[in-house]
């Protein structure tokens, strides 16, 4: 491995006395889309939070671009270039779309703002149409686009996405995955994607991990995992689509 952008080594976290993650090892390399699939409660979002320093790793280490980040406060981790679209979108419902995007750029030099905004509107034209609308009145798919757009406004080196397809119509989810692929191919954006929608996620990702009950049980390239019998049985409904 030449350049590990993100390296997670032996991370263990707890909720009170309940252990949630057991010795997680994983890497995200520059320019990759890496996905973590797993069932509800497997610990995917917990890992995301451990990377961002929300729910800290009790043991193990997280390094980003060679820098240990597992003891940093969240806002400093974000300022290093990790941007997160958290689970459940978490847009600011009473603020306008435009203001939401502004909030995404708080860590960035304001001189980039106009360009970045134009890029975001080109990426998600619907956001431009709705720019003065209260974000809470957007549809689920639009809100997800806004959440991703907001995260991208921070010019991330690594984009963390927690279940972007949650609660979306398949077509809308596909649009979002297509956008991610495009961003990855045209701009080399590195993405770490946590998903339950294993089929789409694995088709999109260059590499993937499977998490079961707080442990990584399988890893491999996207197509390897897609064709893996265990993955097929557990996450793809038995038949290989």
């Amino acid at each position, binding site marked *: 491995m030449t350049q590990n952008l993100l390296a997670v080594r032996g991370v263990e976290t707890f909720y009170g006395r309940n252990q949630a993650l057991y010795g997680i090892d994983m890497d995200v390399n520059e320019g990759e889309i890496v996905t973590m699939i797993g069932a509800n409660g497997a610990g995917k979002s917990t890992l995301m939070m451990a990377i*961002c320093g*929300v729910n800290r790793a009790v043991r193990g280490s997280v390094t980003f671009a060679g820098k240990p980040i597992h003891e940093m*406060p*969240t*806002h400093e981790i*974000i*300022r290093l270039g990790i*941007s*997160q*679209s*958290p689970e459940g979108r*978490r*847009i*600011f*419902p*009473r*603020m*306008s779309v*435009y*203001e939401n995007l*502004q*909030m*995404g750029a*708080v*860590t960035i030099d304001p001189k980039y*703002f*106009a360009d970045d*905004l*134009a890029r975001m*509107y080109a990426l998600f034209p619907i956001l*431009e*149409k709705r*720019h*003065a609308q209260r974000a809470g009145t957007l549809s689920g798919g639009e809100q997800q686009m806004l959440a991703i757009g*907001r*995260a991208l406004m*921070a010019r991330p080196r690594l984009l963390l996405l927690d279940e972007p397809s949650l609660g979306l119509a398949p077509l809308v989810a596909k649009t979002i995955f297509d956008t991610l692929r495009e961003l990855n191919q045209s701009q080399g954006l590195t993405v770490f994607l946590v998903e339950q929608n294993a089929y789409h996620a694995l088709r999109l990702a260059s590499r993937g991990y499977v998490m079961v009950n707080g442990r990584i049980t399988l890893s491999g390239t996207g197509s390897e995992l897609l064709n893996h019998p265990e993955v097929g049985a557990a996450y793809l409904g038995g038949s290989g689509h």
Partner: protein
Amino acid sequence: MSSQLPTLPALLPMLKRSAIATIIAFFLFLPTLGIKTAASGGVDGLFLQYRWSGLAIACGLIFVARMAMEIFGKKQDGTSKPAAAPSALVRFFGSAKIAKTVGPVLLVFAIVFPFLPFSDRYILDLGILIITYVMLGWGLQIVVGLAGLLDLGYVAFYAVGAYSYALLSIHFGFGFWMCLPLAGLLAATWGVILGFPVLRLRGDYLAIVTLAFGEIIRVVLLNWRGFTGGSNGLSSIPRPSFFGLPFNQEPGGFAATFGLEYSSMQRIVFLYFLILALAIFTFFVTGRLRRLPIGRAWEALREDEIACRSLGINTVNTKLSAFAIGAMFGGFAGSFFAAKQAFVSPESFNFMESATILAIVVLGGMSSQLGVVFSAIAMVGGVELLRQLQFLKVIFGPDFDPSQLRLLLFGLAMVLMMLWRPRGLVSTRTPTVFLKDEKTVSAAMISQGRG
């Protein structure tokens, strides 16, 4: 919604509902209105007095009001009504254009107010009081309205400001303009001191701790006799002067210097303009802050703290700055209060003050600066209006003190608000104005979007 009177079969369920409301009212009013404990003066101590007539009047009023609501009001069928078209009043206050005209009109009125023919000393004092509350409301609005941190102990900062001014001017002879920033600074420091332990708290828990904080400050002021004078308070605080010219009859005083005839009104007018200037300062600073990144961060914090953190906002600093800046304006207002009264005591800083200021902010619609002005006029002016209702003594007897109705009015205002304006007088949230260089972008976007 028919204007015709309903027929008898339709009237019966209405009568039934009104009767139920009346029965509930009867039990509610029975202990509060129907029974009164009175001291007998003898060895018996207290005995109960029954006021059946008062109870009957109250229940009758409830019945009539409920019937009126049934007949003339909207259907109360429990299902959620489709949002009615905004009433004229809502449209009036909601429109940004109107808000832009009403603001300057109010400002001009406030400036000429002391020179209007009816402005006697009493009216001016009332004006000063209202503007003080407007200023406090704007200060608390940062904490409660923008940052969404429910603060029930805001009066503590008002007290810190007042005592700072009193102590600094008594012991060190500092003038008003020197004390003002110091008082603001001290209050802001206490804002941070309060902020630190409550960083992790939200909602009810935050409210309880801030409530306790307000009480702690008051109790300390009450008991630290050597420093604060205890319940006697601090008196003979130097009054502010007009750029060094005191308001007195001496040759070097304000009146003599400007060749005017001395009048005690001059000092009041000066104080009026002083608080007006402070309030305008508060208005511009808080209004400007809202449009700055820090203000947007406060609002984002109110909306979703976790999202804020995941965007790289330092939530600790953001919260503390909201507490500190909100407290600073409380300190300024407190400083003015001490200068105006020339006397401070812990009495002035009880929980009722916090509640009033919070009510002003909530009634005003949490994030509208104009709303705070209207609700302060209603809350403070309304109470004063009660004092004017002396003619009610004819009906209720000579012991009737209309100003005791204050809490009743308070409750009534809250109930009416719940019914008609559940999100405050001015509940629309205007998006923060776009900055200059962004304006071109947004204008282009609009034309693209439409075209």
